[in-house]
């Protein structure tokens, strides 16, 4: 299937606080933009793959969205892999088309936790809440602290990731947070859930994003302007919750990356630009280690020695990522990857051939990898 399927169109709403907008409305805007980008009409869509809104679960969400879109798709479904859902749904869309289940698929996601309820991000964690375990940040902070103790990773290493993301976000007119951050300011920031301060944490955003998936042959037939080939994808999952995870400092990028790189016939050295899920600063640090961009445990020094800025050895999160562009989990990273391969990104890395995109979710429970290329 390598290169046989493409992302034919991408669309995203504004990100930030969008009061009064339902997730249906945000999805419809993003889908309309993606269809316009692909240059195709709505009735051609016969597959609808949706990540349900994180802030509120609704049964039959994909079908309600299909109704709002005036569609009767052959395949319609919601996925629950948290932040890994978007890439997993793109791969599922490609496999569905490959097997004749549908012809042209939309994969989309929208949420409105900023103007609506952000309770999902601060919720008590089951029976452990009696110990004061609340919120999403703590699980990742527990992992970060272990990584620090095990490998000597420092707050300054984490800070390099936040600083780079904010630099890219500052230069991105569409980013939600366009304020640069110095490493000194990062180090001086008051702790939130140590070892994290607020600069280690993803933004909370309203918004929507969508992509159109079809075969490369169909894209030629429909004269799609700038299709981007899907070269590889893969997943990895762990059932163990953080406290029970025997190896707390390895992510599922090991499995999802191996599968995706094998399918693409590529290696980390072939990657020109990476969009790596950065819900918290520790996440891309460990993800790059587990993809094999550096030795296990040396993700911290990698940030400084190799560099993740535009002039670094591995330009990463060129739109600002979840730390600066939008906290919308995952799809915006795919869209930025498409733009980099099209050579149309706001902060374009020269001569991009291959772009690696990672999505992950839960507390590093789920992982999905996508490799896009020319």
């Amino acid at each position, binding site marked *: 299937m390598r290169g046989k399927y493409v992302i034919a169109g991408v669309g995203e709403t504004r990100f930030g606080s969008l009061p009064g907008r339902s997730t249906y409305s945000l999805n419809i805007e993003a889908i309309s933009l993606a269809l316009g980008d692909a240059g195709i009409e709505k009735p051609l869509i016969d597959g609808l793959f949706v990540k349900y809104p994180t802030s509120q679960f609704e049964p039959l969400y994909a079908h309600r969205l299909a109704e709002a879109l005036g569609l009767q798709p052959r395949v319609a479904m919601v996925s629950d892999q948290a932040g890994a859902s978007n890439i997993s749904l793109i791969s599922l869309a490609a496999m569905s088309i490959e097997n004749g289940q549908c012809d042209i698929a939309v994969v989309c996601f929208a949420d409105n936790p900023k103007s609506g309820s952000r309770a999902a991000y*601060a919720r*008590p*964690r089951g*029976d*452990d*809440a*009696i*110990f*004061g*375990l*609340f*919120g999403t940040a*703590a699980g990742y*902070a*527990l*992992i970060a*602290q*272990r990584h620090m*103790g*095990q490998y000597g990773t420092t707050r300054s290493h984490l800070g390099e990731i936040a600083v780079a993301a904010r630099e890219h976000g500052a230069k991105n007119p569409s980013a939600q947070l366009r304020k640069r951050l110095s490493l000194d300011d990062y180090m001086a920031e*008051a*702790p*939130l*859930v*140590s*070892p*994290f301060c607020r600069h280690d944490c993803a933004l909370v955003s309203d918004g929507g994003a969508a992509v159109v998936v079809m075969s490369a042959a169909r894209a030629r037939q429909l004269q799609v302007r700038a299709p981007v080939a899907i070269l590889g994808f893969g997943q990895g999952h762990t059932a163990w919750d*953080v*406290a*029970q995870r025997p190896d*707390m400092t390895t992510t599922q990028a090991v499995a999802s990356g191996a599968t995706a790189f094998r399918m693409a016939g590529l290696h980390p050295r072939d990657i020109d630009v990476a969009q790596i899920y950065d819900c918290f600063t520790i996440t891309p640090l460990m993800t790059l280690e587990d993809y094999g961009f550096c030795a296990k445990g040396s993700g911290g020094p990698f940030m400084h020695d190799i560099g993740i800025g535009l002039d670094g050895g591995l330009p990463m999160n060129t739109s600002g990522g979840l730390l600066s562009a939008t906290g919308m989990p995952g799809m915006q990273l795919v869209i930025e990857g498409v733009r980099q391969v099209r050579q149309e990104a706001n902060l374009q890395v020269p001569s991009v051939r291959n772009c690696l995109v990672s999505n992950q979710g839960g507390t590093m429970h789920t992982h999905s990898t996508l490799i896009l290329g020319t």
Partner: protein
Amino acid sequence: MEHIKAALPQPQITSVNQTYWDSLKAGDLMFQQCACGHRWLPARTECPSCLARDWQWKKATGDARLVTWVVYHHAYHPSVADRLPYTVAVVELAEGPRLVTNIVEQDHPEPLRVDMPLALRIEVEGDTSLPRFAVRPPGEAETMAPH
């Protein structure tokens, strides 16, 4: 006006975990051990290794090591507002099972570090007795884990 303190969210007591919480009230930290030898927490009906229901409650020695921890400086819930800053940790019992807990008695001069030895401190919190842990003082001998 009388200040009514918000309560910590209570664990949901079920037929599966009732022994765990009742034992803590009686001063014992228990874990589950399967006939296949696998040991675990939190309480569940089937052994996650062999899937049998042939398990028993066993008493933990209370010896543990610190896997990792965080310090909350922000109250995500009103019940913890007057406890800031507080430490939430993951510990591994000498017998193997892991649990989320708090580290207490942090006037201890030694800073926290991963894998440092800990000792159980069962503390009463309202109607619930909680398994918390303190850094094991140098003089406090490690007990032998049962086998």
